[in-house]
């Protein structure tokens, strides 16, 4: 609060100055564009990348200078902040457009009915046909089972950390959850391979893959959920306790619903994170070219594995399948994402 009070002292300084008109940013952009273009024509400066960077820097500098002179330093700082955040947004969308565009351009070639209704059984690498049906089935089952295990587990752990934990045990758990996020996915796969497949002799199966994914998924769920639960105002908790509502009911009826949108985001991130994992699947589900509906027995395929394997082959036919598989994988996660958000919105829960 002290900081806010401090800043009020400087308030009067700039109150008399007038803000810049709205169009001024466009004007400055145009002016710096012309100046940069001239510089690039007249001097040895060269290159598209150079030009864009030069222009962007020139714009930010010019805009800030103009703003400082006309509006005063407080408005100038405000303007600089909005320019930079907008710049960040554009910068973040560039790779999205690049990756998505690239994948769509290469993936649409085999994004057809055969692809979604056929397996790869008896399709050689150089054959044109074949599809990813078996891989789609496998991925849905593996990620589905992993989600069913990770989400309740992760929720319970984060509830413990936020609502109950005190002292050392809580801190230890919290630290180790973070450590778990840094576990290389392939190590999770190695662990499940050693314990489940080799020592317990359960064999390769979709479920073994799910177990490896659980190890990767739980920390993400815990970490994001924990952040969201911590942000639920204590006043809500206290109000609920004051009404004589027991703690577990408070958690279930007040805290979780309040944090639900954030939690959903966390779960979606976790699903997105694991559904593209290749390395742990490589070691646990074995892979197969035939359909296997049973996740608990026998080798199963997964979409990331499918993409990885097909992409490593020299044949154009296999490459086309790989990109179509990548596109399918992205589409699958997007659909899940949208559905989850719609569900959350329909159940009315909004952040307080």
């Amino acid at each position, binding site marked *: 609060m002290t900081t806010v009070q401090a800043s009020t002292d400087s308030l009067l300084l700039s109150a008399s100055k007038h803000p810049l008109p709205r169009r001024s940013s466009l004007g400055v952009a145009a002016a710096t564009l012309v100046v940069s273009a001239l510089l690039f024509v007249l001097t040895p400066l060269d290159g598209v990348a150079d030009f864009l960077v030069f222009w962007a820097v020139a714009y930010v500098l010019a805009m800030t200078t103009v703003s400082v002179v006309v509006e005063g330093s407080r408005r100038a700082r405000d303007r600089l902040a909005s320019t930079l955040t907008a710049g960040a947004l554009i910068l973040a969308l560039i790779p999205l457009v690049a990756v998505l565009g690239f994948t769509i351009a290469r993936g649409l070639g085999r994004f057809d009915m*055969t692809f*979604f*209704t*056929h*397996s*790869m*059984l*008896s*399709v*050689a*690498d*150089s*054959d*044109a*046909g*074949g*599809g990813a*049906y*078996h891989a*789609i*089935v496998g991925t*849905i089952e593996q990620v*589905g089972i992993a989600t069913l295990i990770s989400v309740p587990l992760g929720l319970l752990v984060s509830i413990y950390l936020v609502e109950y934990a005190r002292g050392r045990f809580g801190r230890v758990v919290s630290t180790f959850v973070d450590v778990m996020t840094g576990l290389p996915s392939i190590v999770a796969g190695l662990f499940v391979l050693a314990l489940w*497949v*080799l020592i317990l002799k359960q*064999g*390769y199966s979709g479920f073994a893959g799910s177990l490896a994914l659980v190890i990767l998924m739980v920390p993400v769920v815990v970490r994001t959920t924990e952040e969201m639960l911590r942000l639920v105002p204590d006043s809500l908790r206290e109000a609920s306790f004051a009404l004589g509502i027991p703690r577990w009911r408070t958690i279930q009826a007040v805290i979780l*619903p309040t944090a639900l949108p954030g939690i959903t985001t966390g779960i979606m991130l976790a699903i997105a994170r694991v559904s593209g994992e290749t390395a742990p699947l*490589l*070691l646990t589900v*074995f*892979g*197969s*070219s*035939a*359909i296997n509906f049973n996740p608990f027995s026998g*080798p199963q395929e997964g979409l990331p594995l499918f993409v990885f*394997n097909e*992409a*490593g*082959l*020299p*044949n*154009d036919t296999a490459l086309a399948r790989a990109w179509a598989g990548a596109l399918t994988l992205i589409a699958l996660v997007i659909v899940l994402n949208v*559905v*989850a958000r719609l*569900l*959350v919105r329909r*159940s009315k*829960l909004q952040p307080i």
Partner: protein
Amino acid sequence: MRRTRLLGTAAALTIGALSLAACGTNNNSTTSGAASAPATSGTTASAAAFDCATGSLTASGSTAQSNAMSQWVKAYQQNCAGSTINYQGGGSGKGVTDFTAGTTDFAGSDFPLSATEMTAASARCGTGNQAIDLPMVPGPIAVGYNLPGVTALNLSADTIAKIFSGTIKTWDDAAIKADNPGVTLPSLGIQTFHRSDGSGTTFNFTRYLENDAPTAWTYKHDKTWTAPGGQGSKGTAGIAQGVKSTPGGIGYMELSFATQSSIPYAKVGNAQGKFVSLTTANVVNFLSKATITGTGKDLALSFDYTNPDTNAYPAVLVTYEIVCQAGNKSTALPLVKSFMNYLAGSGQALLEPNDYVALPDNIKAKVQSAIAALA
């Protein structure tokens, strides 16, 4: 209440999605039936090319042979109803680990089992039984390059070694000129591409350099690239892509990647100082002098890099199938035997169209008799 509805909807959606898509099929005969016919052409094998067995096999290992394996599996499955063979790549190390742990029926490997691996793998086959290496898929290693305007290139072993160890830096170097009299070489910087993952291709390529260019190549042969410089790529696909997109690029790759990406490849110098083009005949010239160094029924090969044949192409990789000589699961044995029999028999005809090379007759005969003795 809210939560149950949420869960319910989610479950309904999942089930809906699954049942909607439940029209998937394993039947790919309509799309690929045409290609299955020539499986037996070109060999003198008897009419009964397919001595079928039923059941299912799983196997894993070498990615270098997976292209051939996918053709074999397809041909076998289409001719032998009731058989399923699931071969997955993942690398020779994984293949051996899986086989040793007993989770697969056979392994594909770029290397014969080492002594310690042999002990561990044999233990899996039961007491007193032995795991054996069967050489099955020979594949030439091409030295692909990207030189605008140059369509034919000779590279001696010494020159290749110097290029890949960074001693020769430009394409108009005197050593390359000496290998290629009369060819105009651009003064372009050389960019070498090698594998960054462990691979049998690297192992055999560096072993060729170690043997045929002992002074210029001072590094050990290994699965992992040990020379400095150059750009590494995971998998041959990355090397092919790198060479293809980089003027001045050069890299070693399995032949199929060079042909599929239309990358020209060099005539390679052998121990006799001759430049040899990569042809089936020249590879067979080299392989036919290989000796079997495996003990017992094991058929591990040892290449003869001093091969006196002036037409022997020395940059060659042979991948193996690893099976139990005896002690196979009784349920798997008939199919293992029948499938291996096919691979070493009429299946060999599928190798050349897919940029591999068929086994020389002398080795093939030994492999076939070893398979006949599997128990």
